[in-house]
């Protein structure tokens, strides 16, 4: 396994980093937050429509570039670093891998093609669970040529931004996956503490769907979707280490120039040591994310699951601590609206329980190491 990035990979990262530094500035992120939509639609048009970021990880057969998880992770890291309000996680790390994992041939061709072309997508599953398919809120039954489906997903990421909304539902004792045609059901935008990721509520009350809305060929189970869940979790971890990097940069810049007691804040040893400990944690989390990405296809699902849970646990904790320290080290201005730490801080809290909080990820690992006899 090679953990050194290739020149192509470095180029992808640099391009993404440069573009987002230009387009997802502090001012722009604030505009998005004030607009309370949770999505930067213009930026999305650029990166998904013009630059084809969503095509990268989609197989060439379906109109993509067929690149791997490492490229995905580099993009997510860059997105996280600037808190870019993009439905990229929902689209590339959740919806596309889920279609690829359980979709029938026709659905794959159509939906992955649309995603590669720049349409946003999402999945209406339980985004707060380590096993987001374990408690599905939708029930479907066959009806005539099609299906009737009803239920509710309380919080769906990027719901209103998505052109493709995937809905997993219970069907005949197993799972089926549906892609909602545009305008199906009720979608409500929810106001959030973190204004940088759109959250919506989806209610199907009930609705009839044509047979063509079904994505999977003949049912699937959670194990079939393992790669999609792993991808979602790893993508989020990458986004979190990116955001941690971003807020550490902001902080290091600030304390390098801010003077107190006749010295820069950065010159105080206690501050240096706290920053250094964050840096150690950052290296640790990042190495896990990169390592898990590099081995994504080769590692067994069980071990991959442990690694990704580990990455997610470290990345979530890191981002929270880094943004908490950012506020503290900024002193008085650290909790004004005007300075950036709060943007990262709110994202940190909001992301911390996505796909399970730290205790749940460590719980998965403990189950694997020690047996699952105890309830988490």
């Amino acid at each position: 396994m090679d953990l050194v990035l290739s020149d192509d990979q470095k180029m992808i990262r640099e391009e993404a980093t440069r573009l987002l530094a230009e387009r997802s500035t502090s001012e722009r992120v604030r505009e998005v937050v004030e607009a309370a939509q949770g999505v930067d639609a213009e930026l999305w048009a650029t990166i998904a429509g013009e630059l084809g970021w969503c095509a990268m990880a989609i197989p060439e057969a379906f109109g993509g570039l067929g690149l791997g998880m490492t490229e995905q992770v580099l993009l997510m890291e860059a997105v996280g670093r600037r808190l870019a309000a993009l439905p990229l996680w929902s689209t590339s790390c959740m919806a596309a891998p889920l279609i690829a994992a359980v979709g029938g041939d026709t659905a794959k061709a159509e939906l992955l093609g649309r995603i590669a072309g720049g349409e946003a997508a999402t999945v209406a599953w339980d985004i707060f669970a380590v096993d987001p398919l374990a408690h599905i809120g939708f029930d479907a039954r066959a009806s005539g040529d099609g299906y009737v489906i009803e239920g509710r997903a309380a919080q769906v990421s990027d719901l209103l931004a998505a052109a493709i909304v995937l809905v997993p539902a219970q069907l005949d004792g197993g799972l089926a996956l549906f892609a909602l045609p545009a305008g199906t059901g009720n979608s409500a935008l929810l106001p959030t503490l973190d204004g940088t990721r759109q959250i919506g509520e989806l209610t199907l009350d009930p609705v009839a769907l044509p047979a063509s809305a079904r994505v999977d060929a003949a049912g699937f189970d959670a194990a079939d979707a393992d790669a999609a869940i792993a991808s979602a979790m790893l993508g989020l971890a990458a986004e979190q280490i990116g955001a941690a990097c971003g807020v550490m940069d902001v902080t290091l810049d600030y304390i390098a120039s801010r003077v107190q007691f006749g010295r820069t804040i950065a010159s105080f040893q206690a501050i240096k040591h706290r920053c250094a400990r964050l840096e150690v944690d950052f290296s640790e989390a990042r190495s896990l994310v990169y390592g898990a990405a590099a081995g994504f296809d080769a590692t067994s699902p069980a071990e991959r699951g442990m690694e990704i849970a580990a990455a997610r646990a470290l990345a979530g904790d890191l981002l929270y601590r880094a943004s908490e320290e950012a506020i503290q080290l900024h002193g008085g201005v650290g909790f004004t609206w005007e300075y950036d730490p709060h943007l990262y801080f709110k994202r940190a809290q909001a992301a911390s329980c996505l796909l399970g909080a730290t205790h749940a990820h460590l719980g998965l690992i403990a189950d694997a190491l020690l047996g699952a006899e105890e309830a988490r």
Partner: protein
Amino acid sequence: MSDQTTDELRAEIRDWMASNLTGRFEVLRHRGNAGDGDALPDLRKEWERVLAGSRWTCPGWPHEWGGRGLSVAEQIVFQEEYSRAGGPGRMGHIGEGLVGPTLIAFGTQEQKERFLPGICSGTEFWCQGYSEPSAGSDLGNIRTRARQDPATGDWLVSGQKVWTSLAHLSDWIFVLARCEEGSVGRNGLIFLLMQLDQPGIEVQPIRQIGGGAEFNSVFFDGARASAANVVGKPGEGWKVAMALLSFERGISTLGQQMGFAQELELVCEIARENGAAKRPDLRQRIARAWTGLRAMRYLAMRVLSDDPSGETMRETLGYKYHWSNWHRDLGKLAMDVLGRDANVISDDPRHERLRQLFLFSRSDTIYGGSNEIQLNIIAEQGLGMPREPRGSLF
């Protein structure tokens, strides 16, 4: 705290709150605390006058200045019962807790007569002008200047104060300024009382991370303080300022703890409701929060006991660090207990209260001496470790 002597007082306050914090004042319950300090200002000013009408403002002041002369233990009882009843954040806090005691200790007879009644009656509200943009936690680095007008003897003030709580809702401000040109550090400072509504003073709100704006920048451009409104001697402002800060660490502490206890109870209540109480990690953290709060209670009782042997001095130094970090951690715990409900703004006012706790408690470890300053003080004054060097930039 449950002595016979205080039981009657406790019952009196409880009854009073029950019969007064009702009707149109009902909406004030639990409002106006940190993070929510600019909520319903007019109604809260009215409430101050209701308090004053029954002599519940300034209960610790001496009788001659309108107080009740309550003992420390009795004031604690007042704070506890006020908080327990959900009494709103006190608009008069700065006047009652800081300016009043400072004037009683250092003010002239004229100053006392001019200012204490307005504070006591809930008709004049105060804010504080200490921090400056370039000074941060370093009060010795004050740059706001006061120049004496030779004609009138008044002082003309120019400069900027920042983090001035509720300046936009206050009538007066006290200002620490540099009155001797070329002076540095603690020397050459003056402590002035200034009317806010005058040419040369502009108040600009600072928007906080929670969205509210209870803090302000206050800009001074040749604003005037009457010669009669200097507290202490010109040049000795530091002494007055330090004394004032020491009043800040007083009785309000135990009322604050009562508020903390309510917040923790709310966290427990929600944990029981939403199943978070079943998570072992959250159970342990909630138990730890209870532990920290109980320790805080005994710590405060030791600190307030003011043992003349100096026995508790070392522990006193750590009090601010302890409560502020405890409170900040409680904010995080509250969010983790809310879990999936933390991020989405709902109609449940309890959730919103916890979100504000989460956001605003970030300031606890920064204001009034940041964590870093507190740790320096504990190490240097408490443990006798070497002082941090000032001034050399490297």
